[in-house]
């Protein structure tokens, strides 16, 4: 099999969509926060929390879907902490975000060690099983790639569609977009900017946490340290790549995941002649290139990272 043939195999695309799923959740989460005007750099830590919370719920005997809900709630609470500091108190979103990432990550590892002091190899859970959609999953390549995934992947695409619908078709989405562009416009129409922003950060953080939970409940079956491995930061870039639009961001996530799935297969092809680190680098190099090409003219939400104080000009 040569490098081009890989692109026409169903297994490659199945892997790409699977890798994309957690990115889609977290990218939509970040996009909602930023559309409301809050940069959420807590994403990496919140994904860690979600990965652990979901996994630990199932490990302790909970149902898989209960695990997803617990992960979302855990994410939302860290979102509330982030939003309390950045919205009513107006603290620096950079500093708070990085602080949340450090706090959430460390707290998760600490809790893991408290809960499982003895284990050496991470215990496994029974993850979500693939749920092929009858009929659709029989379509060659495309159908297989999209419709023979686990329920969480379907949920990821559902979340992306819902994000787009809410942002562009509903009154509350309108308020979110306006809050990220000109909060004074929201205030002047009698809506609380603080309320909208806190809500957006909480919902966004819940999505990020579910993205993290995907890794432990639909991909790796267990929780281990450093498992988020920079995926949160990638999602920040994906939001920019997608020019803050859910559809383009979704495509960006799939594109990045495809690069990632491709480099793994190229590593096997090269037979050890090229150092594998070169292949590992590839998705990131390509992402930077894609950002340069696509996102240079992106129009970002104008009030992004600017705290809003009522009555201040």
């Amino acid at each position, binding site marked *: 099999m040569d490098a081009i043939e890989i692109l026409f195999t169903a297994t490659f695309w199945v892997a790409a969509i699977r890798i994309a799923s957690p990115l889609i959740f977290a990218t939509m989460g970040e996009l909602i926060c930023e559309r409301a005007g809050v940069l959420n750099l807590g994403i990496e830590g919140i994904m860690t929390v979600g990965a652990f919370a979901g996994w630990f719920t199932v490990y302790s005997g909970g149902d898989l879907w209960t695990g997803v809900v617990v992960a979302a709630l855990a994410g939302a609470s860290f979102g509330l902490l982030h939003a309390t500091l950045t919205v009513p108190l107006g603290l620096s979103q950079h500093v708070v975000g990085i602080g949340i990432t450090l706090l959430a990550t460390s707290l998760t590892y600490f809790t893991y060690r408290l809960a499982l002091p003895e284990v050496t190899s991470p215990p496994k859970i029974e993850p979500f099983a693939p749920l092929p959609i009858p009929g659709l999953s029989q379509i060659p390549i495309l159908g297989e790639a999209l419709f023979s995934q686990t329920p969480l992947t379907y949920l990821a695409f559902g979340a992306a569609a819902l994000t787009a619908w809410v942002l562009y078709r509903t*009154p509350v989405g309108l308020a979110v*977009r306006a809050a990220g*562009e000109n909060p*004074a*416009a929201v*205030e002047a*129409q*009698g*809506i609380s900017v603080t309320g909208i922003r806190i809500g957006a950060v909480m919902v966004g953080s819940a999505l990020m946490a579910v993205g993290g939970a995907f890794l432990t409940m639909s991909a790796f079956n267990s929780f281990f340290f450093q498992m988020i491995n920079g995926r949160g930061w990638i999602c920040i870039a994906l939001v920019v790549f997608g020019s803050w639009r859910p559809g383009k961001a979704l495509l960006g996530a799939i594109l990045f995941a495809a690069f990632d799935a491709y480099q793994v297969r190229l590593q096997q092809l090269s037979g050890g002649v090229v150092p594998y680190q070169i292949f590992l680098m590839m998705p990131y190099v390509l992402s930077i290139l894609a950002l340069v090409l696509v996102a240079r003219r992106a129009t970002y*939400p104008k009030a992004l990272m600017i705290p809003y104080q009522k009555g201040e000009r």
Partner: protein
Amino acid sequence: MTATEPVLRLQNITKRFGPLTANDSITFDLKRGEVIALLGENGAGKTTLMNILFGHYVADEGTVEVFGRPLPPGEPRAALEAGIGMVHQHFTLADNLTVLENIALGTQPLWRPRLDRVAAAARIQAMARDFGLEVHPGATVSALSVGERQRVEILKALYRDARILILDEPTAVLTPSETEALFRTLKLMVAKGLSIIFISHKLAEVMAVSDRVLVLRAGRLSGERETATTDRHELAALMVGQEVAQPTVEAVQPGRPLLELAGVSTARRGSGSALDGVSLTLRAGEITGLAGVSGNGQAALAALIAGTERPTSGSIHIDRHNPADWSPRAALASGIGRIPEDRHAVGSIGDMSVTENVVSERYRSQRFSRYGFLDWGAARRFAEQIITDYDVKCPSPDARIRLLSGGNMQKLILGRVLDSDPKVILANQPTRGLDVGAVAYVHGRLLEARRRGAAILLISEDLEEVLALSDRVVVMSKGRLSAPSARGERSVRELGALMAGHGAEAA
């Protein structure tokens, strides 16, 4: 409710910001179908008062009643529901949204699964027709002109069934024809029984549009007049607390040429015209007024003189000396003082202190630096000196310049420019957006510099200002300059024709 009962009643409204009393016990009524003009200089407390009314601020004392019911303080939502609509001076529109979205924002229950665009569009179009406010509901706000944005702001208020409309300096951003259209809209509103509060510091507009005038000075109501029984002079006096004298321009013998442009052209940038073979001589002790419709090359000429633009052809001589390399630094070094058009964007750095701003053009000079280190003591003394000499109202030299009112910021910039006694002064829209008192002050200082022998180029869109101050007038149209005319030589009509680009003579 009877027809004579007021729709709005403010009683003893007082608001303090620290030691400053922005509103001092203000009481007035607004009747149905009435237009009240709220007149006052910048910083007199007009906007503060309206922000209290609209719930952006909470008053320290006093009450507001709307249609006989007390208005809960500090809640924009309550004000909206009571029927108060506000058109802010700085528009509160989200640029990324469409006209329809901006208007519909917050008018439908937030948790509806779908924004009803069809009903909203129909309602907007009906209102636009009724009040002569033409807009396209599907257009994105970022693509609209300032006048169109203001129409959207007004529609926002009408869409919510506002019965009382507050317009904060609505004409500051409009062209004359847009202003006329706005006044027609206001008449239609009044005919439909709306009441209007019109905030302004422009006397002519106040006289044209209002039934009653309330004058605010330093936070207090300094007078209340029926518009029909007063005149501009009386109102001006109430505003500033004294009679405002017209500038007197005494005859001065023009001296040697201090700035000479010969056949200068510049590269095209942005939307405005570039210079096309411009020749201009500025002489010592002379004010040259540049009239013209904005966008015809004034920006390019100002940029050229300030050194931010280099000529593609032609020559520049300053006091008969031809600078080798033309740059902002070269311009400053050769004695050009610059009062920029936009004091916020170009003239100052909002988040830096008054002291830092006054030395920002001259920090290299011996006076403010030693061995490569800034002498903050000298800088601060300089700031204090300007604050005293130019009567700048500011809390301290350490205050962020953003906190100063427009007039005070302009005085500070004026002080910074005039202190070094420049040979050439570029005054680009020096009085735009300033109130009567500050305008008179700026004019006085410019005339003083003229007496001292500076060559001044006054660029202004206000033809009255150009005619009042200038010894000679040139007109700019499509990047070309007309031949100069001496004071009184050309009539306003002739100048208007030149501004419109008719019969442009080569200079």
